C-alpha cells in the first residue's frame, strides 16, 4: 500500500497535478510529522502511520495559498469525508483539491469504532468492514439506558473540561468565523470547566449533520472526554430517519438544512435509545 501511495504521489508531483501533497514524513531520527511534499526525492520518506488527521491542516494550507494552487491530500476515509463536507459547505474549492485515498487497517477501524474505514475514492489498500459503534460496551454505556444515570455520567465527564478548545481547533468541520464558542453570550469567559449545555452541547449540535466521526476532537482532548460518542446518536438518527450521512458526496444535502419539514425517507420512528425525553416525561 505504501509503495502504491508513493508512486501516486510521485506521479501527481511529476505531472504537476498538484503543487504539494500533504501527508506524513519520516525524517531523520525516525521523527514522524505532517509535511507538504513538493519534490520527488522527499517522497522516499513518506509514511502512512500513525493515523494523523490531515483535513484541517489541508484546509489551512489551501486557505493561505496563492490563487491556482492545488493540494493533494493523503486521506483516510474520515479525512476524505471531512474534505468532502468542507467542499460541500463552500469552505474549499473542489478544483484545488485532490485526494489519495487509503484504507485503514482492521485494528485502526476497531480503535476508532469506525463504520466506514475507507474512503469513497480508494487508491491504495484493501478496505475492511466497518465496526458497529453501538456494539461497543463503553459507547452503549454512554448512549443507551436510564437517561438520568447517563446524564450523571456525562456531567461527571464534561466537568473535567479545561476549555483548551482542542475539540474545536482540531475538528476539520469547525470552521465558522466567528465561532459561537467565542461568544460571551453563550460561553462564559475566564472560568473552567466550560459549561455542559452552552459549550459542549452547542458544539455537538452545531456539528450534528456535519460530523464525520473522525475522532479528531476526542484524540485532542487532554482530559479524555468521549466526544465522538456525543455525536453518534445524532449521526445515527440522521442515517436511520433520513438516510443521510455527512461527507459521503458533495451533492447529498443535509436534512437539517433542507428536508426537516418534509416526510423523512425512512419512516418516522426514532430508535428508542435516543428517545430519552419521553422517558423523562413519563417518570
Amino acid at each position, binding site marked *: 500500500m505504501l509503495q502504491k501511495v508513493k508512486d501516486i504521489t510521485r506521479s501527481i508531483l511529476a505531472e504537476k497535478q498538484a*503543487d*504539494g501533497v500533504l501527508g506524513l514524513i519520516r525524517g*531523520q*531520527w*525516525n*521523527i*514522524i*510529522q*505532517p*509535511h*507538504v511534499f*513538493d519534490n520527488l526525492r522527499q517522497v522516499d520518506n513518506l509514511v502512512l502511520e*500513525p493515523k*494523523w488527521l490531515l483535513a484541517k*491542516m489541508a484546509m*489551512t*494550507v489551501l486557505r*493561505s*495559498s*496563492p490563487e491556482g*494552487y492545488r493540494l493533494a491530500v493523503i486521506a483516510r476515509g474520515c479525512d476524505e469525508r471531512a474534505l468532502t463536507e468542507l467542499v460541500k459547505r463552500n469552505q474549499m474549492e473542489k478544483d484545488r483539491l485532490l485526494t489519495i485515498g487509503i484504507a485503514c487497517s482492521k485494528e485502526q477501524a476497531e480503535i476508532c469504532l469506525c463504520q466506514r474505514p475507507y474512503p469513497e475514492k480508494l487508491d491504495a489498500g484493501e478496505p475492511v468492514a466497518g465496526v458497529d459503534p453501538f456494539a461497543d460496551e463503553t459507547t452503549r454505556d454512554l448512549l443507551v439506558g436510564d437517561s438520568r444515570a447517563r446524564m450523571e455520567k456525562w456531567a461527571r465527564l464534561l*466537568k*473535567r473540561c*479545561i*476549555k*483548551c*478548545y*482542542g475539540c474545536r*481547533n*482540531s475538528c476539520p468541520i469547525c470552521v465558522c468565523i466567528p465561532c459561537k464558542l*467565542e461568544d460571551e453570550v453563550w460561553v462564559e*469567559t*475566564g472560568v*473552567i*470547566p466550560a459549561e455542559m449545555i452552552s459549550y459542549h452541547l452547542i458544539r455537538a449540535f452545531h456539528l450534528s449533520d456535519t460530523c464525520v466521526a473522525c475522532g479528531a476532537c476526542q*484524540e*485532542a*482532548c*487532554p*482530559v*479524555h472526554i468521549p466526544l465522538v460518542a456525543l455525536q453518534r446518536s445524532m449521526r445515527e438518527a440522521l442515517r436511520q430517519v433520513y438516510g443521510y450521512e455527512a461527507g459521503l458526496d458533495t451533492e447529498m444535502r443535509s436534512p437539517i438544512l433542507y428536508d426537516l419539514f418534509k416526510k423523512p425517507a425512512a419512516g418516522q420512528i426514532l430508535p428508542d435509545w435516543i428517545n430519552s425525553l419521553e422517558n423523562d416525561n413519563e417518570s
Partner: protein
Amino acid sequence: MNPEFIKTICPYCGTGCGLIVKVENGRIVGTYPDREHPVSRGTLCIKGWFAHEFVHHPDRLKTPLVRIGNRFEAISWDEAIPLAAEKLKATAETYGGDAVGGLCSAKCTNEENYLFQKLIRMAFKTNNVDHCARLCHAPTAAGMAQTTGSGAMTNSISDLAGADCILIIGSNAAESHPIIMGEIYKAVDKGATVIVVDPRKTAVAQNAAMHLSINPGTDIPLLAGMMRHILDAGLHDAAFIRERMEGFEELKNFLQAWTVERAAGECGIGGDTIRNVAEVYAKAKEAAIVYCMGITQHACGTANVHAVCDLAMLCGKIGRDFSGVYPLRGQNNVQGSCDMGGLPNVYPGYQGVSDPAAQEKFQQAWERDLSDKPGLTLTEMIGGAGKEIRALYIMAENPALSDPDVNHVLESLAKLDFLIVQDIFLTETAKFAHLVLPAACFAEKTGTYTNTERRFQLLRQAIEPPGEAKGDFEILCLLANGLGIDFPYIHPREVMEEIASLVPAYGGVRFDRLERAGLQWPCPDTYHSGTRFLHEHKFTRGKGLFVTPQYTPPFEKPDEAYPYYLNTGRMFAHYHTGTMTRRSPFLNRELEEPYAEIHPEDAQRAGIREGDRIRITSRRGSIVTAARISERVAKGSIFAPFHFTEARANILTNPVLDPISKIPEFKVCAVKVEKEPYENQGR
C-alpha cells in the same frame, strides 16, 4: 511556497508538551499538537494551542535600548555589548565581583543557563546567580535533596495513569498543568481515588473523590496526622523502612506530639477525614503524591516538602513505577535552569560551590579561579540592590511582578547603578533597566529544555528573531567575549557536550539523541537510555532520610485590622506575569482584566456584588481589582491571580522567607477588603 511544519516544545509550563508550528514565509501562523510526543500525545491546553500568537506581536523588542534620562533610545549591538561589559567590569573593579549579580531564566534553554552562570562565575568570581526557581520549587530542590538525594520528580508523568490513589496537595493541575491532569483522569477512569488537599475548591478539587479544605498553611499538621494514624494502625511499610531508610526513630518521636485530633484541630477538618485519607493512601497498591506551589510557597516550604517525602517513604511508596512523589515544576525549563547551576550554592549538576573537589573540577575546566562562597539568592539580591549589589544582569525574568512585596522590589531596582534586562518584551522589570537587550523567543532558537519529569527535549528553531533581536545564546557569547572570556561556541550542541563532560548524570545527553523523544536524566553515558523513575534499588543519597518537619504556622493570620486570608495563584488562560499570554489575543479574550475571588457570604456582608471594584489591602500595599463572587474560596479567604500588572497581587504578599530555601510566603498573608467608592466603580 509550501508551508513547513516544525516540531518543537511548548514555551509555557513544565509539562513540556510537543508542538508543531506551521511556518509560512518566515512567520509562524499556527500551532498543532504533536501526536508522537511522549508526554502530550497529540493534546495541548489552551496556552499551547495558541503559543504562536505572541511571537509576532508588534511589542517585540527589536533593537538594544539604552536609557537616556527618562526614555529609551535604540542603539546598535556594537554599542550595547561594550557598554554592558564596561559597566559590569567597572562595578566589579570598584566594589568587588560580589557586587555583581545575575538572574538566569527558567524560560531559557539549558545551554543558555549554563553559559549564563558560567559567565557570572568566571567573569566576576562570584556565585551571585539565581532565578525564579527560588520562588517556586526551591524547597523541592532543598527538601528532596535532603530526604532522597535528588530534588526532582521521582517518576514520569505517564506513571500517574497507573496509580491507584493520587493525593494532590496544593496543585491546581487542571489550570496550571492541564496535560498532567489528563494522566490523572486516565487513572480515575481505571478506578483510582483522587484526594485533593487545597483551601480552595479548585477545578481539581471539584473533580476529586475527596476534597480536604484545610486552613491555609496547615499542610504539616495534616501530613503529620496522617502519618501518626498510619503508624498507629500499623499501615507503614516496616520492611522498606528497615532496609532503605534512616531517621525513623526521630520521626516516631516527632509524631508523638501529633495526635490525629490535634492535627484535625489545626487543619480545621474532622479527625475521621484524616484517618480515612491516611488509610486510602497507605492501603493503595500504588499511590502517588502530586504537589505544587501550595506546598512550597510557604515560610515552612522546605519542611512541607520533608513531610510529603516522609509520608511517601513511611509507606514505601517511592522508588518504583506509578507510586512516587511528583512535584510539578512551573516553568518550561525550571528543572533545567536548576540542573544547569543557575543557583547560588551549586555548579551544574548540583555540585556544591563550597565543595573543594567540585570547585577544583570547574576551575580546571573553565581555567579560572572561582569563588567558594555561596552567592546571594534572588530575594537577597533584589533586597540588597543598591547596597551590596550594584549591578544586576537579568535574563528573561520579571521580578517586578513575580516577587513578593513588589513595591519594595521596584524601589530596590531603581537603586541599582546598572541594570541590564534581556527579554523579548519591554517587561515591567525592563522599564527599570539602563540597558535592554532584545532576545529571541522559543520559536527562534535551538537548544534544550528539561521538563518536570527530568526529560531533556529539543527545541528547534522555526523562524528568525525579529529585527536585530538575537538568541540569548549568541548574546551571552558576545558579552563573554566583551568581558575577556573566550566562549568559542558556534552551536548550542557544543555547550551540551561540555555540560555532559562536567555532570555525570547528564553524561550521555547529546543533541542527536534527543531528536525523537528526549532523554530523562540520570543518563550517565551515550549508551544509557535514560531513567523513568528514581531511587529504584537505593536512594540517590544512599539511604532515604526521614527529616522531621518543623511546623511553622503562617506568619500572618487574619486579625481585626486584616480579617481575610489572601491566597495567590494562577488561572488557566494566563501564564505567570502575563508577558506572553496577555499579548496573545485568544488567551487575553478569555480574561482581559484582573479579578479576586470572594466567598458569597463575605461579599454580602461587605456589600460587594459581582464585578464591583474592590480594594484589597495588606500591610505592604493595596490593589484595586474586580470582585468575582465564588464558592471556590473558603469563607474568610480571598484568592487573587498574580498575572496582572494593573493589579499586582504581589504588592500584597508577605516577603517573609523560608529559612532553608529562602522562598517567600506567597500563599498566605492577611488582607482587608473594601468596596471602592462609587466614583471609582467606573460604571
